[in-house]
């Protein structure tokens, strides 16, 4: 028992008195609304007290930082040794433009890079594909071949700065480019560090960046995990992401449950397919969460996530290495919480969400810019967003002490509740035969669609509030400067691609692609062949076309 019996007894008497008082007050002065709930519609009580957490077991449920179950963080020193990584997601136009933005961010005190690719790159198409029309450079950087990539990392100290790449179906091709670029610059693969998102399950569930069916998609991911384990030890080969699940409209609990169950699916696949020991690769699994607007719910979610993962790794997979039990994660503030109306309010939202992420113990953070609901972020807006992190780190005192909300009746109770509800989902998916099977049934997709629809209906009905949307609406628009990617970027990029095609040895490209195909058919690891292919200047689409040919193309089943 978490409290001594006399404390609970005292509390019970005092609670009785308080409840009587509440009843009297309400009779005269009713509450503003009958039901108070989180943004995810989780009902919240008026007050939390010792009885709400009385069943907790201190050693097993709370403990200390750097100790199982890591509720209070992985690091024994918290943020005192090192703040979280200030990692702003950026990419726009062509490689040169993005490279300039990266240098600006590093100069401004950013400590890690994070790459946004444009849609053709994300989907494994070259800029000149008919499917890519109008998309080039619009929401990220356009990369067709290694030549573009060399320009992207020009002047970036690849042995010192870690780089995250948000890339999923073509992850093997883009990671191969990063590896090849390092090699060409004389940096050994053991020295480079970073993350590829490489999480296909959440694409099927939420974001729909789709290429091949689930099973071969997971196979390609296991290839990268194996290659990283053996050759690129400082690389996180997968960033298991809840961010997009949440942006697609899930609740916090769904984000937690589906993300962690995705993580378990990957662990099981690598164990089955690659025969590695769990502790050989699990320490390099990383996670990526959303920090939404409901402050305490987010803190509780992140704390619960750490505890669930530690338990799962130790108990489900018999992992022995504490580093496998750590859930290391990046966080991004919630794009879907921002409003196009009164855009400066977004600075306040982002700051609150960033603070929640820090209090939840994130290792890395992206803060959204105020204009991201309208367009790509401007230099000025990005600077405010980065400064938001720096202010939280260095002015507010939020990083002074580790996990400052631990022991709060409310935060611990909410953390427990989210963990319980997440396990319910996880067990349900287990019963369905795992996440791939659940996805084929459309289970997570439809759960999220229901939540998204419910939320939108609540906004329409004024049951949930978004300032500037359904309350305190101002009639006049606030003009803000907007970044525009010129349509001419597309033509220039196509020209560059054609120039590469003219100058490269096309026979060598074909040989390299045939090697990838053979590896796919034999079930060998594709990574070494991908590195050779990108060095021969094969394009992203040429590599992805091999996958599409061998594994087939997956089309959005459009569940609603």
């Amino acid at each position, binding site marked *: 028992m978490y409290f001594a019996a006399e404390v609970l007894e005292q509390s019970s008497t005092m609670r009785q008195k308080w409840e009587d008082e509440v009843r009297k007050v309400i009779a005269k002065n009713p509450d503003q609304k009958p039901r108070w709930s989180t943004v995810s519609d989780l009902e919240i009580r008026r007050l939390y007290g010792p009885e709400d957490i009385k069943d907790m077991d201190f050693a097993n449920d709370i403990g200390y930082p750097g100790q199982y179950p890591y509720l209070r963080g992985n690091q024994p020193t918290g943020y005192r040794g090192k703040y979280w990584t200030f990692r702003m997601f950026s990419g726009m136009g062509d490689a040169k433009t993005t490279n300039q933005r990266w240098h600006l961010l590093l100069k401004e005190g950013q400590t890690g890079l994070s790459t946004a690719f444009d*849609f*053709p790159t*994300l*989907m494994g*198409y070259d800029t000149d594909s*008919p*499917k*890519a*029309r*109008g*998309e080039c450079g*619009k*929401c990220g950087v356009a990369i067709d071949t290694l030549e573009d990539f060399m320009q992207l990392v020009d002047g970036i100290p690849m042995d010192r700065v870690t780089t995250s790449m948000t890339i999923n179906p073509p992850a093997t091709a883009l990671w191969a480019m990063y590896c090849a670029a390092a090699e060409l610059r004389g940096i050994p693969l053991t020295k480079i560090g970073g993350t590829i998102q490489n999480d296909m399950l959440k*694409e099927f569930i939420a*974001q*729909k*960046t*789709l290429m091949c069916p689930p099973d071969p998609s997971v196979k390609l991911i296991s290839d990268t995990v194996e290659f990283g384990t053996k050759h690129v030890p400082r690389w996180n080969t997968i960033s298991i992401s809840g961010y997009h699940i949440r*942006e*697609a*409209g899930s609740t916090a609990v769904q984000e937690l449950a589906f993300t962690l169950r995705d993580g378990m699916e990957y662990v099981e696949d690598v164990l089955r397919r690659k025969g590695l020991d769990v502790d050989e690769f699990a320490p390099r699994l990383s996670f990526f969460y959303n920090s939404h607007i409901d402050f305490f719910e987010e803190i509780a979610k992140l704390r619960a996530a750490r505890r669930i993962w530690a338990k799962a790794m130790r108990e489900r997979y018999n992992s022995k290495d504490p580093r496998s039990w750590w859930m290391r994660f990046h966080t991004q503030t919630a794009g*879907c919480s*921002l*409003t*196009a*109306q009164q855009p400066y309010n977004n600075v306040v939202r982002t700051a609150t969400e960033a603070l929640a992420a820090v209090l939840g113990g994130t290792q890395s953070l992206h803060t959204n810019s105020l204009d991201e*609901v*309208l*367009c*790509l972020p401007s230099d000025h807006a990005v600077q405010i967003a980065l400064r938001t992190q720096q202010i939280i780190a260095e002015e507010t005192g939020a990083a002074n002490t580790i996990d400052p909300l631990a022991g709060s009746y409310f935060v611990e109770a909410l953390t427990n509740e989210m963990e319980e509800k997440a396990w319910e989902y996880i067990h349900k998916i287990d019963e369905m035969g795992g996440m791939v099977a659940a996805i084929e049934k459309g289970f997570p997709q439809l759960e999220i*669609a229901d939540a*998204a*629809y419910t939320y*939108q*209906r609540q*906004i*329409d009905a004024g049951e949930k509030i*978004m300032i*500037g*949307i*359904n309350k305190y609406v101002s009639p006049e*628009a606030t003009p803000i400067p*907007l970044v*525009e*990617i010129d*349509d001419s970027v597309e033509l220039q990029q196509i020209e560059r691609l054609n120039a590469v095609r003219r100058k490269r040895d096309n026979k060598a490209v074909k040989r390299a692609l045939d090697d990838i195909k053979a590896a796919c058919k034999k079930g060998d690891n594709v990574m070494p062949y991908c590195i050779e292919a990108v060095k021969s200047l094969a394009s992203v689409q040429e590599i992805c076309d091999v996958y599409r040919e061998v594994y087939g193309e997956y*089309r*959005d*089943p*459009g569940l*609603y």
Partner: protein
Amino acid sequence: MADKKIRVMVAKPGLDGHDRGARVLARCFRDAGFEVIYTGCHQTPEQIASAAIQEDVDVVGLSCLSGAHRYLFPAVAKLLKEQGADDITVVGGGIIPEQDFQMLYDAGLKAVWVPGATLDSIVEWFRTNVQPRN
């Protein structure tokens, strides 16, 4: 007895897969009593125009969050016109800066919505501006 229904196609042109809005709207239109044809993600303008004609819809609603609306939305409107189907109303929504509204209207779109538009206001617009045709 004649029982005319508004038929709407909800379509996602381009490579962007962010379909939260499209799917929420599809449900909302169904609940408003419309017949909704949903195309799923990753459609080319050609696929959308051709499907809209085969389905004989009254409206095509396009959703795009990638920034490629400047190419994709006008392309759909133009293809419909070329195939003699400019009586099909084209509307759109997504991450669309206000400065692009005019070029979309010029291209033939009848309405553009950005994040924050309420479902009810969109349904209301449809009820006022779209009549099932003969």
